[in-house]
């Protein structure tokens, strides 16, 4: 069968084989998981169950339940002073993944360029290509994994349409303060570049207050703000995200959404709506717990000679393993085979992230401690 050329050209992730190896092994301590180790807070699960008991099993409006959109409107207003109209400027999506896809498809004309700072979450590039765009990767490892005005200027040309920004970032855990963001914003607005801002880890920011991109100077009209319930509320499997932006882009995104998805499952929307009402405290508790684990992991890794930056958000650290002389994939594979600890090779997040691994600290302190002991033993053998 003749598969579409674009799809055929898409690189099936080079580390698929490694992932299969992990999934086939038993009793592995996994530091390779990109989701919280908490289960969804009970009151949220209960709201989902109750909605089923009540017989809420139908479609909802394409944009999503009004009550959920209103809840999101209030959350953004309280937290950031952002004013998105629940009728025209908010769309409920199947996780941030769908929001990203819709935003790119709504914006891209053939061969438009989209800037993607790397290392980055795995889908940004392929989804850009599927939408007919050209991903332009910007390597940031020499700049502390942060995008800078200088790097931006170097990569922008006439065909540059947008950028996918993600902070706090997967896989590095870095984030930006307002001043840094304003500098980025200045460059982007000068060139009239649209910012698709993936802020799904925004609630998990540790050392300072998270700054939402649309709150920057005159940025709101040029921003698609993406967020969701997966990470902060431990709701990955429910698949609920939301996109906010100027009404033209939300209308365009809704057009695609109504033909492809129709609407997000009602049970999930009901649960998400409850999360906004009653689970804010759980979010804070989980954040405090992550923060302690982060400090523990960073201290341990640095003492083992695996240098890493202190993350400012999310639940990942991205240490350098260059001192071992192994490449990312070999390091990960050997660590798995010899010590049964799973991590994700840095190269999963960009070809040039060679020499790094991603460690997720979304796992219990006991497992974390044991895994780090095993990594220590592993390093002693290798050195």
């Amino acid at each position, binding site marked *: 069968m003749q598969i579409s050329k674009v799809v055929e050209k898409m690189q099936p992730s080079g580390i698929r084989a490694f992932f299969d190896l992990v999934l086939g092994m038993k009793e592995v301590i996994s530091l390779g998981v990109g989701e919280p180790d908490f289960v969804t807070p009970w009151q949220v699960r209960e709201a989902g169950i109750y909605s089923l008991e009540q017989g809420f099993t139908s479609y909802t409006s394409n944009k999503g339940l009004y009550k959920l959109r209103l809840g999101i409107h209030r959350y953004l207003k309280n937290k950031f002073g952002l004013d998105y109209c629940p009728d025209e400027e908010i769309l409920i999506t199947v996780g941030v993944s769908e929001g990203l896809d819709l935003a790119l498809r709504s914006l891209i004309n053939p061969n438009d360029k989209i800037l993607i700072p790397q290392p980055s979450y795995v889908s940004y590039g392929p989804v850009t290509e599927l939408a007919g765009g050209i991903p332009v990767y910007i390597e940031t490892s020499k700049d502390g994994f942060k995008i800078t005005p200088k790097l931006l200027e170097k990569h922008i040309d006439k065909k540059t349409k947008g950028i996918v920004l993600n902070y706090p970032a997967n896989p590095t855990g870095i984030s930006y303060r307002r001043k840094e963001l304003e500098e980025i914003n200045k460059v982007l607005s000068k060139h009239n570049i649209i910012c698709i801002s993936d802020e799904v880890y925004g609630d998990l920011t540790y050392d300072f207050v998270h700054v939402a991109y649309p709150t920057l100077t005159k940025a709101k009209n040029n921003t698609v703000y993406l967020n969701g319930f997966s990470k902060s509320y431990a709701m990955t499997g429910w698949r609920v995200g939301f996109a906010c932006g100027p009404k033209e882009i939300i209308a365009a995104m809704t057009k695609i959404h109504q033909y492809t998805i129709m609407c997000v499952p009602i049970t999930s929307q009901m649960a998400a709506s409850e999360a906004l009402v009653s689970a804010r405290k759980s979010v804070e508790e989980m954040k405090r717990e992550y923060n302690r684990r982060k400090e523990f992991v960073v201290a341990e890794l640095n003492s083992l000679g695996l240098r890493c930056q202190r993350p400012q958000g999310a639940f990942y650290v991205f240490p350098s393993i260059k001192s071992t002389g192994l490449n990312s994939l070999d390091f990960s594979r050997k660590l798995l085979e010899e010590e049964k600890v799973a991590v994700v090779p840095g190269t999963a997040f960009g070809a040039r992230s060679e020499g790094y691994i991603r460690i997720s600290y979304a796992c219990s*302190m006991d497992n974390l401690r044991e895994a780090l002991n095993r990594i220590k033993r592993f390093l002693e053998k290798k050195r």
Partner: protein
Amino acid sequence: MDEILEILEKDGRANIEDIAKMIRKKPNEVKKAIKKYEKEGAILRYKAVINKELIKDSEAEVRALIEVNIVPQKDLGFDKIAERIYSFPEVNSCYLISGTYDLLVVVEGKNLHTVSNFVAEKLSCLENVRGTTTHFLLKKYKEDGVILKHRSENKRIAISY
């Protein structure tokens, strides 16, 4: 609440070095803080939470919640009588509460008999105790925030982006 207490409340065995790393302080500072809490009595002691239903060779224990109505004592209110009650080793916990009765007393004994004897011979006979209602505990589901059930396995897939 201080983060050190927050950590210890969840895991009484957390060691000083780990706590220090978690909250970015020096081990010595953490040690000092803990000593201070212990001295002040903020930390009273460290104990394990045991699910006794799983311990086959232990002598079965019976627990009862006893509602106690009392006549408060002049000048001393409820405290003096409460003290007389909670000083019995059989009493596991004792609370002064609002509502239709005054003290809620949790009593533990080897079997129904020992608990009943305690109520009949010791508790009810106290001068200021007006009456008691005893509820025997049938099953424990959750205690002090801990669900007494085998922890369910982690259902996440082992690796994901």
